[in-house]
């Protein structure tokens, strides 16, 4: 399908129609990625700062039951969780967010297929949008993305002016999705969207991820880790707002004497409990080791295993860090060390 043009009004109308059809529409608003209540709420501001958290919550919830159980005197009965078969549309997400689903899909479908993730993502249409925001924390270009990257989007929007967007269909799923909305689309004008893309300010590329990976491989015991890691407070803010951090913990919770649920909860590698063994031993006993793990996982282990950097350069973790630790600065530092070698 050729590139089309759609007005903001029509995008809103589209949303309203989706909502009427009982589709969940998620879009970045001032207070984060929220479920819209009406199409009018849609802002689609490509110049807006990143929301505090990514939309990860909607494909990989902060907490969800994965099984229910009923205990009797000698037995336990297990009951599957019925997933709601409901379509979700993520509307107007930044390229660095949209990309996350593709990265996550790999880990959730590697040895064990995570049905919860798969059902949700299969039911999700992602409508990405070109990003015109760039601050000191952004570094998507250093991890192979860009503000105009449509990778991961089913449909991609490029703002042309206040009211008009170029609409590019990226995947067949997107094509299928947009069909009923043909009435809202106008034919595109050649070159207009490309010109808009050219105008976008790209963040400067600050490190070479290959070199970073190589340095990490060879510098497990480097003093650098200690220097940067000791200021970390050990919360999981960075992991929980990150579009691609995906660690989780599984706990059982009774809700009465005989019945309960098994919950899958977000977890974070910066917690001291994360690697605490039952014996009391903790291989990552101090914060700098935990911080090393975070960086290594993102820039070495995950790339090694899945050929994907576990980072989209969105800079969220840095913006929200209570002690202003900046992943961009830290990995850039690694890059510099790598260059010196």
């Amino acid at each position, binding site marked *: 399908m050729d590139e089309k043009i759609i007005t903001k009004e029509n995008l809103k109308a589209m949303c309203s129609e989706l909502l009427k059809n009982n589709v969940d529409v998620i879009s970045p608003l001032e207070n984060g990625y929220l479920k819209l209540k009406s199409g009018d709420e849609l802002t689609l501001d490509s110049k807006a700062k990143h929301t505090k958290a990514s939309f990860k919550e909607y494909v990989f919830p902060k907490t969800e039951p994965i099984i229910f159980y009923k*205990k*009797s*005197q*000698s037995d336990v009965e297990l009951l599957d969780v019925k997933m709601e078969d409901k379509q979700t549309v993520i509307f107007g997400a930044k390229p660095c967010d949209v990309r996350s689903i593709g990265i996550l899909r790999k880990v959730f479908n590697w040895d064990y297929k995570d049905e919860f993730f798969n059902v949700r993502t299969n039911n999700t249409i992602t409508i990405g949008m070109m990003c015109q925001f760039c601050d000191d924390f952004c570094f998507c270009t250093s991890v192979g993305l860009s503000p105009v990257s449509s990778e991961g989007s089913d449909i991609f929007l490029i703002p042309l002016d206040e009211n008009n967007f170029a609409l590019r269909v990226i995947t067949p799923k997107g094509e299928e999705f947009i069909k009923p909305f043909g009435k809202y689309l106008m034919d595109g004008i050649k070159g207009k969207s490309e010109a808009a893309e050219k105008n976008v300010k790209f963040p400067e590329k600050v490190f070479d991820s290959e070199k970073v990976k190589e340095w990490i491989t060879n510098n497990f015991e480097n003093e650098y880790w200690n220097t940067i890691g000791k200021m970390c407070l050990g919360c999981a803010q960075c992991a929980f707002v990150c579009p691609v951090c995906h660690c989780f913990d599984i706990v059982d919770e*009774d809700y*009465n*004497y005989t019945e309960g649920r098994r919950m899958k909860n977000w977890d974070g590698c910066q917690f001291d409990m994360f690697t605490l063994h039952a014996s*009391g031993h903790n291989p990552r006993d101090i914060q700098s080791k935990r911080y090393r793990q975070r960086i290594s996982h993102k820039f070495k282990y995950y790339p090694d295993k899945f050929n994907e950097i576990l980072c989209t350069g969105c800079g969220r973790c840095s913006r929200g860090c209570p002690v202003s630790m900046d992943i961009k600065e830290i990995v850039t530092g690694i890059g510099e060390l790598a260059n010196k070698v």
Partner: protein
Amino acid sequence: MKIGVFICHCGENIGRTVDCVRVAKACSFFPNVVHSVEYKYMCSDPGQNMIKQAIKDLKLDGVVVGSCSPHMHEKTFRKAVSDAGVNPFLCEIANLREHVSWVHDDKEVATDKAIDLMRFAVEKVKRNAPLKTIQVPVTKRTLVIGGGIAGIQAALDVANAGYEVVLVEKEPSIGGHMSQLSETFPTLDCSQCILTPRMVEVYQHPKIKLMTYSEVEKVEGFIGNFKVTIRKKARFVDDTLCSGCGDCAIKCPIKKKALSEFDEKLAFRSAIYVPFPQAVPNIPVIDKEVCTYFKNGKCSMCVKVCGRNAIKFDQQDEFISEDIGAIIVATGYKLYTIDKKPEASEIKGYGEYGYGKYKDVVDGLQFERIASASGPTSGEFQRPSDGKTPKKIVFIQCVGSRDESKGFSYCSKICCMYTAKHAMLYKHKVHDGEAYVFYMDIRAGGKMYEEFVRRAIEEDGVKYIRGRVSRIYEEDGKYIVKGEDTLAGVPIQIDADMVVLATAMVAQTDAPKLAQTIGMPYDNYGFYSEVHPKLRPVESSTGGVFLAGACNSPRDIPDSVAMASAAAAKALVLFGSDMLEREPTIAFVNENLCAGCFYCKKVCAYNAIEVKQIKDKNGNVIKEVAFVNSGLCQGCGTCNATCPSKAIELIGYTDEQIYAEIAALM
């Protein structure tokens, strides 16, 4: 875990309102329950044998009995379980009688509640740990606090059994209130005549260390192992040198500045003084407040007359530490103060009786001194204002007692008797005198007591008027006593020469302070609390601390003496073994989790939390954590609740156990 459940019908007591069969059946479906039965009397031998047999046959390692209150039969069932080879602490009791069958009518509802309580207990027992009682050694020395008749009796009993006693008295002499009394009811024995030999016996007893003019400053430790610090107040007289000749007091120029405490302020005493001639020890003290030497350094008459150079103006308070196994508290009482409002604002004084305003309105102890042969009037009945013999005396009972609006609601117990005695003593000496007693009820329960009161009324002609006095005022040298004769239903007015108020026995002013020092409970009135009013009347709830006499509640001499002997017996029971067994319900610290904030230490009433340093292999201190002294810990669990990360847990009531009980609600 294999748990056996045993439901007791308690004859019909439980069975009548709880469907025990249904409870047993329901319990059989609880996870881990492998055996669930009911029986008529679980505490009977066959009942206990059922438990033992089931433990053996089914290899049970947990037992829950649904029966009466654990306060009744927990020990019984624990013992049965223990006999069958299972740790006694793996047995839990669900209270199906006091808390269910006796308090509910609806059988359905009661049975449901019983099942719930059983579930709580099953869930708890699953998480019980096998525990061992704690063994602690016993120091076989007794501290007796208070040298009144109760303290004297207790000290003598313990000492005569062969154990050392430290007797601490805050006044310069032992003897207490009994030494102030004239004669005693109902026999009219001379109080001092029967008391003094006992005082001397204490003084001469090789096993008794007597410390007068001393106070307990600090009590550390626990049953069998107390460490007590005693403040020996400076007497300014060296007790090792003084021969008790009394010359100093005779020569002391201060004669009319200090009122005698012993004579209840009806007479003067010198600045250096022995409270009364028969004092034990017969060693004077100097009253710093009135002594001229201490005021301006000008007089030292006593130093001059003392042949043994025993006067030591530079003497300081001494602190003496004693190792003690048992403490007997016998601190006695004081009389209700009526001349001014007591500190507690809710208690109003008896301003309308004019005590403190009219010299001839006196309280019970003052009248004792007036009646006493050793008193300021040498036993002659003279009224304080002008020394005239009172021809008409009004006695008013229940002043401060049985009167919620002005004093205390309790009955002071001895006043009926001492008033009858007072009136009788008066009538015996002033034959033409008239004695009126205003009373509310006459309470004369005791051997020969009622007879004694009848004698006062019938033989000695004391006039008893049932009613309260509303007001006393002076008119022309007479005291107009206005009241009501409730039997006749008429207002009554008596112009008396003297009025005696039967003021109540109340707790010592500093009773709460001592209670806090020792760490034992006291009631709203300031009397020390016994563990159980019927079955454990002489034990305080603090282990190893026993009570004797009026510090526990108002009581007379025979009761005090009996109680003192009982307390002594309790101390001796304690000394009967070398080691003590204690419930293992104590706190325990998980040192890995302890962050060393020491909130546990702050809330511990027993100083049971100590600071322990955790060191690495090189001996460097890594951190400081809390450590529980298992001897001191009494197991209240306040530390457990206060600890934010639950690094300290109360064994027997762990968080896990309590959680399990809560979770068993639905």
